[in-house]
């Protein structure tokens, strides 16, 4: 019921997401057909050229889609973030099935039939068009069917690089541990895959019955419509007077991204493009370096260690100074800190902490032998994460920590699947799920002050942005941020609405 309510309340965005998803998949598969079928013919005629192509397509297919999106971000022209890059990835995924079934379809043409065509005086092209391709058609359509179904699934991942589509709901739902939002994206995606499978299956049967699929006119019409869509989606998305505001893929980031975007919209004439819910730090950083992202909120500790690969520094002012200098050296400008410090906190279930009298990480260390930890994969990798924590406090857990998605750890802790996790200090779920943040009594975690980071080139072009964004400086303390996160994650209020309320209470920000 909540699900249907959600769809109805968000019907415009929801229909837009479905449409984007559909266009992405259809365009990608269409391009794959336009490229893959001729390549398949080439591969069949000239195995020496064709085998390496098939080999390449095989390799591409084995790259996990998220990794492929990551690879592509820094690549000029075809890469970056947004629909264009997503299209490239989906196209590459669709290529292999189309290529392979084209080749196997051509190989399945009986030799006497091919020979009859040649003996009859068909030219190479006539043989291909009148005999080989028509006979390979059922196989090729089967390939398109596989490509489409795979594409519908892979397109959900495309939301990680800001291409929109149904994956956006899935990512957002995972980030805020909201099953309804996940289902809001997952169910239509699954239905879309089923519908594609069914309708192409029908085409496959018709193709096998050896009757023409559609008239020539319909084919030309469909072909040119597809080409048009492809051209539009490939047109570079940036132009003058626009600023691209991004965020990583968790609640707080989306709220802050929305806040920056709204503020700029209200106080300037610039057109703001929102690329919220991008992937992780790496995605935002590479997108920014590639010039696809102009502005987002980063955390000083993350910038210091994850982006600039510097050793841990505990002094907050020193971290700010270093990070600001490193950003300046790489074409970015770090603006005033927003006020809150979203450091890692070690969390336990409130009931456990109270019954065992645990308030600090040192006290946790004493009983760590009985505990099962679960950490986000980033925390396990980072220098300021798990390994350092274990050394600093002498922790010894009952079992090796389970690696899971950061946003899933809260739920896993509350459900008793793990006993302690590392969360964000400002996460709204902490109070919702009755979790307790333990005091970092040995000051292990470095500061993670939230700071807006903007590309210097953009700031130079629109200098008015500097004071506008800096007017947020110090306005958002830990408690303010936690409350906004709570509104989003627990009260299920849309980020846009939360930002609206925030700005209403501070009229001086939008004079």
């Amino acid at each position: 019921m909540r699900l249907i309510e959600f769809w109805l309340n968000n019907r415009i965005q929801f229909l837009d997401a479905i449409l984007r998803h559909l266009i992405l998949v259809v365009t990608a598969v269409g391009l794959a057909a336009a490229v893959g079928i001729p390549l398949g013919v080439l591969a069949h005629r000239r195995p020496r050229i064709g085998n390496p192509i098939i080999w390449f397509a095989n390799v591409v297919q084995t790259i996990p889609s998220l990794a492929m999106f990551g690879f592509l971000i820094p690549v000029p022209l075809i890469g970056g973030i947004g629909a264009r890059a997503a299209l490239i990835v989906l196209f590459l995924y669709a290529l292999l099935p189309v290529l392979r079934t084209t080749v196997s379809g051509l190989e399945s043409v009986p030799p006497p039939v091919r020979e009859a065509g040649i003996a009859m005086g068909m030219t190479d092209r006539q043989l291909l068009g009148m005999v080989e391709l028509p006979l390979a058609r059922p196989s090729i359509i089967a390939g398109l069917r596989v490509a489409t179904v795979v594409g519908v699934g892979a397109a959900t991942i495309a939301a990680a690089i800001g291409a929109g589509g149904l994956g956006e709901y899935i990512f957002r739902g995972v980030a805020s541990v909201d099953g309804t939002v996940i289902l809001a994206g997952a169910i239509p995606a699954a239905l879309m895959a089923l519908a594609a499978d069914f309708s192409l299956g029908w085409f496959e049967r018709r193709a096998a019955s050896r009757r023409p699929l559609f008239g020539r006119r319909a084919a030309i019409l469909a072909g040119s419509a597809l080409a048009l869509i492809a051209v539009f989606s490939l047109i570079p998305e940036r132009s003058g007077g626009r600023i691209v505001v991004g965020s990583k893929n968790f609640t707080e980031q989306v709220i802050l991204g929305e806040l920056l975007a709204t503020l700029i919209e209200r106080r300037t004439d610039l057109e703001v493009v929102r690329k919220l819910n991008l992937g992780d730090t790496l995605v935002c950083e590479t997108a920014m370096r590639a010039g696809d992202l102009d502005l987002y909120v980063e955390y000083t500790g993350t910038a210091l260690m994850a982006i600039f690969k510097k050793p841990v520094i505990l002094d907050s002012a020193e971290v700010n100074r270093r990070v600001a200098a490193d950003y300046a050296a790489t074409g970015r400008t770090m603006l005033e800190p927003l006020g809150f410090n979203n450091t890692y906190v070690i969390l336990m279930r409130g009931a456990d902490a109270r019954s065992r009298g645990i308030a600090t990480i040192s006290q946790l260390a004493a009983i760590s032998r009985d505990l099962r930890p679960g950490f986000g994969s980033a925390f396990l990798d980072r220098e300021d994460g798990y390994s350092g924590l274990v050394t600093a406090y002498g922790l010894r857990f009952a079992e090796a920590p389970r690696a899971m998605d950061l946003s899933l750890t809260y739920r896993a802790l509350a459900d008793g699947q793990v006993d302690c996790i590392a969360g964000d200090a400002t996460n709204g779920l902490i109070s919702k799920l009755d979790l307790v943040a333990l005091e970092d009594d040995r000051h292990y975690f470095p500061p993670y002050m939230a700071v807006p980071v903007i590309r210097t080139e953009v700031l130079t072009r629109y200098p008015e942005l500097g004071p506008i964004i800096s007017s947020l400086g110090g306005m958002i303390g830990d408690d303010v941020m936690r409350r906004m996160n709570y509104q989003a994650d627990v009260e299920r209020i849309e980020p846009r609405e939360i930002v609206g309320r925030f700005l209403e209470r501070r009229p001086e920000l939008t004079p």
Partner: protein
Amino acid sequence: MSLENSAANVISFDAVSYRYPGGEQVLDSLSLEIGLGETLALVGRSGVGKTTILRLINRLILPDSGSVLIEGRSTAEWDPIRLRRRIGYVLQEVGLFPHMTVGENVGVVPRLEAWDAARIRSRVDEVLELVGLEPAGYRDRYPHELSGGQRQRVGVARALALDPPILLMDEPFGALDPLTRAEMHREFHRIQSRVRKTIVCVTHDMGEAFALGTRLGVLSAGRLAALAAPAEIAASKDPEVRIFIDALPNPFGRGDQ
């Protein structure tokens, strides 16, 4: 030999040698003349190069040495597409296009020649009638809906569609049961009496060669062991020829089984 002057030769092989790409020698300096309107039936064991001879005529392959002349011109000098459209070819396995109807199969070469639809249609009906298939009943059926004998007839109709002066037949009736085959032999004579093509037909069955050929050739080890009128072949004492004659259950009383 009962041959006219060489100007009337439609096809001639002049010391033709051919080796398979693998290296095995198939034809060894073969010479042969085929006159206008005659039906030459070539007999030989499997793998002796019968199909190779047809492929050389159709320029699917070129000889390693010597030359194959079609209407006085070497196949090497012919434009392969133009040459092939002057030659009807009934393949060993028929090779009907499974995705086309009977009518489309028969009309495929006229279509390649860019005939208009009405002309193709009337020609298709004409040749279907010629091979004994009622156009209205067969035109729109698919090859997989036909019996073996019907498919053979469609194969012949397709080869005749452009009214080519030359017709090549590779074991044309090999896959049929004896009764159907006999019927096809009668049909063959009826058709040939109307179209008067220069025909080269290869077979491993001496009975079929006797049934079809106005002249018979016996191929052995890359050469012609004999080339003569049927009666002469039947009376031959040559051991390489006798093998084939003696293999026949009833060498002289035949024609039909």
